[in-house]
C-alpha cells in the first residue's frame, strides 16, 4: 500500500483525536447527535483518504440549521449545559468539514480544549484524567504537525515534541495549581446534579421506575485512632429531612414557615451519651446544600460548624445546612454519639407541620390507619407508649405482608392520584423511599408526628486505605416519629422488609455489566481485589489532587514558614517564585552566551588579564603573539609570564595529549599566572 499523502494523514490523525475527545460525551448526548458526529467524522475521513474536495458552504449551512433545529427539538432551548454541549460537539464535527486555512485548524484545536473540559462536569476520576491527558497530547501533537510545513514529519516526532513541551511545562502547572487562589463560584450556582442516583433535596414518590445504582463514592470517613468502629447497621448519615408532602413529592420545611418560631423556641441540643466518635469526613461534591453527617452530632440547632471556607449551620430538623450547593470536595472534622435523644420532649405548635397530609389523597391508607388505631390493644396505652406501639404494629404489618424490596418497582401514580394507596395495598413493590414515605403517611394518619429523613446508611465492609467508604448507592430514606417525653425516634421500615440491606449496610446491587459480570463469574476474588486496588488509587488521587482546596493552600504556606497565611502571603510566595524563575532565566542566558569549550574560556580569561596589564590582546592572535606583546610592553620583567604563555601553548599543541589542560591544571596555571602578573600589575598601575 502506498503511504498516504501528508495532508490526508494529518487530517486523519486530527479526526482520530477529535473522536477521542468526543467519545466520553456519547452517554450525555442525544442519540442523533452522537450518530451525526460519527457520520460527519467518518465522511471527512473518507474525503481525506480520497483527497476529495470538501463540501460547499451551503451544504454546511444547511447542516448547521438542521443541527440547531434538532437541538431545539430535543432540549427546548439553546443555552444551558446540555444544549450547549450538544452544539459544541456538532460545531466541532462540522468545523472539520471546512479545514481550509490554518485559522480553521486553530478553531478546531481550541474547541477541542473546551470539549475536554466539559467532560469534567460529569466525571473527574483518575480514568477521566488519563483519557484527557491522552486527548490533549493528541491535540498538541496535531498542533505541532501544523507548524511543520516541510516534508512529511513522522507522527511520532510531533508526539515527542508535544510530550517534551508539556513535560517542561509541568513545573509551571504544579506551581499554578498550588498557588492559584481557590475562590468560590464567581456567579450563579454550579448546575445541579443531573440524573444521578444518590441524595437529592426532594424526593418524588414512585417517580423512578428503576433505580440505576451509582457505585461512585459519596463520602469517606476516618475515625480518630482508638475509636471502636460502629457496626454498619448503626451508621446513619443525616441528610435532608423532608416534611412537606403533596401526595407525590416530599420537600424540606422552609426555614421561615409559619410554625418555625415555635420550633425554634423549643429547639434544644441533642442529649447525648456513650462514647464520643470523632472523625474526619471527606465529602465528594454532591451538589447539595446539605452535608450528611453521622447521627448524631451534639451541636444545638442554629450552631455553626466550619468546613473549609464554608460555614455550615444546623437546621431545626438537625440537618447541616450549607449556604450553597457544595460543588467542591469538602473536608471537615466532626463528632457523633450513637446514643442520643433529640427534642422537643413536650408537644408544641412546632410539631404541627409533621402532622399534615395532602387533602383527599390516599383514602384507603387513611382508613386502614384509623382502623389500626381503633384496635382495642392500643386503647389503654399512655401517651408516651402509644406511638411506639403503633409504629411497631405498622412495621410488623410490613414484615408480615408480602411487601417486596426491589430497585425496579415500576412507576407509581400512572392511573390514580393515590400513590401511597397503590403502594400500600396493590403493588407492594418498592425501595427505601417508598417504605419510609408510606410509614410516615400512616403514622401521621394516626395522629403521630412523623417525617422522612434521607441520607446514607451503611458503608463498605472493609476499610479502604484507612477510610470508611460510603457510596452513592448507599443513599437511604428512613423515618422519624415523635413520642411525648422521648422526642424523635428513628424507625427504618426498610429494615422490616429487607433486613440484609440494613444489617450489612450493603446496598442491593443491580446485575453487573457484561464484562464485570464475566470476570466476576470466573474469579470473584480477583475481581474484588482489582476493584479495591483501583478504588484505593482513585481515592489517593482524589484526596491528594482533586481535594486540594484553599485550606490546603494555607497549610502549604504554613509549612513554608508563614505563621498566619492569607491571600497576601500567597501573593508574596508567587512573586518570589516568579523572581526566582526570572533570575534563573537570566543566569541560564548568560551561561549560554559564554564559550562552551574550556580552551575558549581560558583564552577569554587571559585576554581580560592581559588587558589589565595594558596589553590590547586581540582574539585572532595566538599565545605566542601575546607573549611578544607582553615582552615589548614590560621588558624583561614580563619574562616569567611570557614563559608561562609559551608553556601553555606547548601543552595545547603538543603531539601527545597534554595532561596540563584538565580543570585542576587550568586552575593551577591561572593561579601561577596571577602570581607572576602581580608585580607587573602594580608597575602598570603606578606608571598610569
Amino acid at each position, binding site marked *: 500500500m502506498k503511504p498516504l499523502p501528508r495532508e490526508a494523514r494529518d487530517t486523519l490523525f486530527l479526526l482520530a483525536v477529535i473522536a477521542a475527545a468526543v467519545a466520553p460525551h456519547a452517554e450525555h448526548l442525544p442519540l442523533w447527535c452522537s450518530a451525526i458526529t460519527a457520520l460527519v467524522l467518518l465522511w471527512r475521513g473518507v474525503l481525506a483518504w480520497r483527497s476529495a474536495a470538501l463540501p460547499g458552504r451551503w451544504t454546511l449551512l444547511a447542516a448547521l440549521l438542521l443541527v440547531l433545529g434538532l437541538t431545539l427539538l430535543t432540549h427546548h432551548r439553546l443555552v444551558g449545559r446540555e444544549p450547549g454541549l450538544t452544539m459544541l460537539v456538532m460545531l466541532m464535527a462540522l468545523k472539520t468539514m471546512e479545514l481550509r486555512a490554518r485559522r480553521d485548524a486553530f478553531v478546531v484545536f481550541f474547541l477541542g480544549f*473546551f470539549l475536554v473540559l466539559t467532560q469534567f462536569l460529569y466525571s473527574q476520576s483518575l480514568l477521566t484524567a488519563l483519557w484527557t491527558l491522552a486527548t490533549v497530547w493528541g491535540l498538541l501533537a496535531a498542533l505541532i504537525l501544523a507548524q511543520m510545513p516541510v516534508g512529511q514529519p513522522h507522527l511520532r516526532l510531533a508526539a515527542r515534541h508535544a510530550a517534551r513541551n508539556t513535560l517542561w511545562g509541568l513545573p509551571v502547572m504544579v506551581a499554578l*495549581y498550588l498557588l492559584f487562589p481557590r475562590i468560590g463560584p464567581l456567579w450563579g450556582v454550579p448546575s445541579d446534579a443531573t440524573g444521578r442516583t444518590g441524595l437529592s433535596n426532594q424526593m418524588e414518590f414512585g417517580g423512578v421506575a428503576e433505580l440505576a445504582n451509582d457505585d461512585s463514592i459519596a463520602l469517606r470517613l476516618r475515625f480518630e485512632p482508638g475509636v471502636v468502629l460502629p457496626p454498619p447497621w448503626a451508621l446513619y448519615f443525616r441528610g435532608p429531612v423532608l416534611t412537606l408532602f403533596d401526595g407525590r413529592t416530599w420537600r424540606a420545611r422552609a426555614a421561615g414557615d409559619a410554625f418555625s418560631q415555635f420550633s425554634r423556641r423549643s429547639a434544644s441540643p441533642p442529649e447525648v451519651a456513650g462514647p464520643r466518635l470523632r472523625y474526619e469526613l471527606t465529602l465528594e461534591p454532591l451538589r447539595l446544600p446539605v452535608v450528611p453527617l453521622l447521627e448524631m452530632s451534639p451541636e444545638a440547632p442554629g450552631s455553626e460548624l466550619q468546613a473549609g471556607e464554608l460555614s455550615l449551620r444546623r437546621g431545626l430538623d438537625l440537618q447541616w445546612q450549607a449556604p450553597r450547593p457544595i460543588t467542591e470536595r469538602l473536608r471537615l472534622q466532626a463528632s457523633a454519639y450513637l446514643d442520643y435523644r433529640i427534642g422537643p420532649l413536650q408537644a408544641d405548635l412546632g410539631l404541627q407541620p409533621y402532622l399534615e397530609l395532602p387533602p383527599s389523597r390516599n383514602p384507603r391508607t387513611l382508613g386502614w390507619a384509623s382502623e389500626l388505631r381503633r384496635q382495642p390493644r392500643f386503647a389503654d396505652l399512655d401517651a408516651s407508649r402509644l406511638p411506639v406501639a403503633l409504629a411497631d404494629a405498622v412495621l410488623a404489618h410490613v414484615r408480615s405482608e408480602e411487601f417486596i424490596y426491589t430497585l425496579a418497582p415500576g412507576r407509581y401514580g400512572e392511573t390514580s392520584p393515590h400513590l401511597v394507596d397503590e403502594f400500600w395495598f396493590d403493588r407492594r413493590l418498592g425501595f427505601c423511599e417508598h417504605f419510609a414515605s408510606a410509614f410516615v403517611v400512616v403514622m401521621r394518619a394516626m395522629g403521630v408526628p412523623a417525617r422522612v429523613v434521607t441520607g446514607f446508611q451503611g458503608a463498605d465492609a472493609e476499610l479502604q486505605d484507612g477510610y470508611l467508604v460510603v457510596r452513592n448507592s448507599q443513599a437511604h430514606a428512613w423515618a422519624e416519629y415523635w413520642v411525648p417525653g422521648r422526642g424523635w425516634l428513628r424507625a427504618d421500615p426498610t429494615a422490616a422488609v429487607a433486613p440484609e440491606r440494613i444489617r450489612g449496610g450493603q446496598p442491593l446491587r443491580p446485575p453487573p455489566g457484561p464484562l464485570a459480570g464475566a470476570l466476576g463469574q470466573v474469579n470473584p476474588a480477583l475481581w474484588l481485589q482489582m476493584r479495591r486496588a483501583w478504588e484505593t488509587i482513585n481515592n489517593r488521587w482524589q484526596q491528594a489532587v482533586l481535594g486540594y482546596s484553599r485550606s490546603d493552600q494555607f497549610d502549604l504556606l504554613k509549612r513554608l514558614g508563614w505563621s498566619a497565611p492569607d491571600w497576601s502571603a500567597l501573593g508574596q510566595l508567587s512573586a518570589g517564585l516568579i523572581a526566582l524563575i526570572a533570575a534563573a532565566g537570566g543566569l541560564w542566558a548568560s551561561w549560554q552566551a559564554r564559550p562552551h569549550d574550556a580552551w575558549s574560556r581560558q583564552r577569554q580569561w587571559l585576554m581580560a588579564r592581559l588587558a589589565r596589564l595594558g596589553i590590547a590582546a586581540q582574539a585572532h592572535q595566538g599565545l605566542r603573539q601575546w607573549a611578544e606583546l607582553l615582552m615589548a610592553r614590560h621588558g624583561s620583567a614580563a619574562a616569567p609570564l611570557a614563559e608561562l604563555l609559551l608553556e601553555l601553548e606547548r601543552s595545547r599543541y603538543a603531539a601527545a595529549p597534554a595532561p596540563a589542560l584538565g580543570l585542576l591544571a587550568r586552575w593551577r596555571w591561572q593561579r601561577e599566572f596571577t602570581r607572576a602578573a602581580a608585580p607587573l600589575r602594580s608597575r602598570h598601575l603606578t606608571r598610569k
Partner: protein
Amino acid sequence: MLSKPRQRFQAWWSLRHPPSDTHLMVQRNIYILPSRPGLFFCATLLVLLLASINEQLSLGYLLTFLLTGAGFVSMHVTHANLRGLSLDLRAPAPVFAGEEAGLQIRLHNPAAARYGIGLRAAEQRAEQRAWTDVPAQGHSQLQLRLAMPRRGLHALPTLRIETRFPFGLFGAWSVWRPACQVWVYPAPEQPCPPLPAGSGAADPQRAVQLAPLPGQDLDEVRGYRRGDSPRQILWKKAAQAGDGDAQLWVRDTRSPRGHELWLELGQTQGLAWEARLSRLCAWVLRADAQALPYGLRLGGQSLGPDAGPAHRQACLELLARAQERA
C-alpha cells in the same frame, strides 16, 4: 518634525542590524511576540479558567494550568528554535532586469534539530516564505527568489527569518541585512536587433557585411585549439563521434580582424533611455555569443574592444550603472 524621530529610529535600527554576509541569531537579534492564534489561545485559557472556577472543577484547573505551562514553554522553544542558528549566503549571480535573482542561503545548526524555519524578504508577502528544517549538527539550504525589476547595483533586501514552531502561539523572527549586492543588468531587447554598422575607425559598410545575417553561413569548421570558447564547439558533431577521445570541432567565426565593432549610444537614436540601454545590452550579448571582439562607449567611458567573459561583465556592469545625462 515627524521625520526626525523616524530618522533617529532608522539610524538606530541600522546600527542594530549592521549589514553582514553571515547572520548568527542570538538573544540580541531575535524578536518574539504572541501570534494571533496565541492571543486566541490566551482567551481560551481565560474561559477555561472561568469555567473551572465557576463549576469548581479541580481537573479543569489542572487542564488549564497544563495548557498554560505548555504555552509558556512553547514561547521558549520558539525562541530557541532560532537561537544559535547561523546563516550565510552566496553572492547571487547577476541577473537581467525583470528576472528573479536566486539567493542561496545556507543555515548551520550547531545544536538539536530545528523545524519550520521560514525565510522571506521583508517586503515579500507571508505566503512567499520558503520553509526548511535544519537537522541537528547539520545544515540545510534555502533558495529564495527575489524579483529584480530595475537595473543597477542593488543591495539585497532585508531578510526575515521566522518561525512559529512548535504550537504557532508565538512568532519569533530575526532581521538580517545581507552586505553583498547584486548586479541587475538592463533587460536585453527581444528579439535582438542586428548588430550596428561599424563605427569609429571601421568602415561602416564592411561592418555590416561582417555581421552574420540570418541564413548566411559565414562560418568555417576547424579543429579544436586551446583557448577556444566552449560555445564554439560543435557539440552535435562531438556527440555523433561518440568516442571521448575523438577530435573536437569548432566553428570558426570569420574574425573581423582589423575591423572593430563599436557599440555606442549614438547608434540607438530615437529610443527611450532604458530602451537604448536594452538594445546595447542585447548587442553586447550577441557579440559575445558570436565571440566577436567589441567595444562599448558610454557616458565618456569606453571599454575594449575585447572579447571574453570578463569584458562582457565589465560592459554589462557599465550598462547597469549608466546614468542618463540631463
